[in-house]
């Protein structure tokens, strides 16, 4: 349970308005950690204050979701759902009007579109795939044995 507290405390969320004039980051309890205002934000006049509040509250929903996402990795979906029930604070992603993201089919269709005419059916060569795979993993081992991490340095 202490670990759950720790995870929830480490959660944070960031949100900005559509015009990118206000950006706020809050922790899992809603405490403001960072606030950035674009120079043009002063032109909003009286509307600036309420906008900052609105963005902080949107960031709080992100932080709540971030907390539950972390807890779910530790305890699994069922326990996390139970915690949501006990706290009376359901994960924002469960909201009726939440963007459901994309379905698997949609993702695959978009991916196929993106790849265009690239070879689309590696599954058609399933028979020799096993031997290819072991060959590939040997190649990979050889690659990592000779890999020099220093080659990742940006000053070379």
């Amino acid at each position, binding site marked *: 349970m202490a670990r759950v507290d720790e995870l929830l405390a480490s959660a944070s969320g960031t949100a900005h308005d559509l015009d990118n004039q206000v950006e706020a980051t809050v922790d899992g*309890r809603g405490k403001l950690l960072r*606030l950035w205002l674009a*120079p043009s*934000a*002063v032109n909003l006049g*009286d509307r*600036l204050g309420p906008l*900052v509040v609105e963005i902080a509250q949107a960031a709080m929903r992100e932080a709540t979701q971030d907390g539950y996402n972390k807890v779910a990795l530790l305890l699994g979906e069922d*326990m996390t759902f139970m915690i949501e029930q*006990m706290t009376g604070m359901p994960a924002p992603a469960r909201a009726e009007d939440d963007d459901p993201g994309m379905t698997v089919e949609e993702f695959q269709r978009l991916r196929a579109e993106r790849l265009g005419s690239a070879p689309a059916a590696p599954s058609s060569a399933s028979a020799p795939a096993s031997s290819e795979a072991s060959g590939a993993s040997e190649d990979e081992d050889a690659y990592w044995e000779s890999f020099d991490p220093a080659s990742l340095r940006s000053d070379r």
Partner: protein
Amino acid sequence: MAEFDVDLAAARVAEQAERAGAEASARFARSGPVVGKASTDAIEVQVAPGGLLTGVTIHRSALRHGSTVIADQILELAQRATRRAGDKMYHALSSVVDAEQLETLGYEPIPDDDPDADTYSYGR
């Protein structure tokens, strides 16, 4: 090892929470919702316990200082208001909930001589 009974544990937590919740809500019914406030001459900030902003008022006179100064001031005021809300929650709940648990929730008392204390008036 005894099997961990999730339902029993949940029921126990819920019962404890309900008992503490009933006492706490009786208290809050008397005191009204707990908020933390902090302000300068030109900016007022109000937060809920935990620190979530619930109100920010920026007077026109503050706008000429520029966005960076306003953002810094709101952040500073929000932190002070958060501590004040935590202090109020601590005093409202300390007889019902363990001090240690309150501190885990970020509700800590502010010493009287702390500049963030509501009652602090030294040098003002």
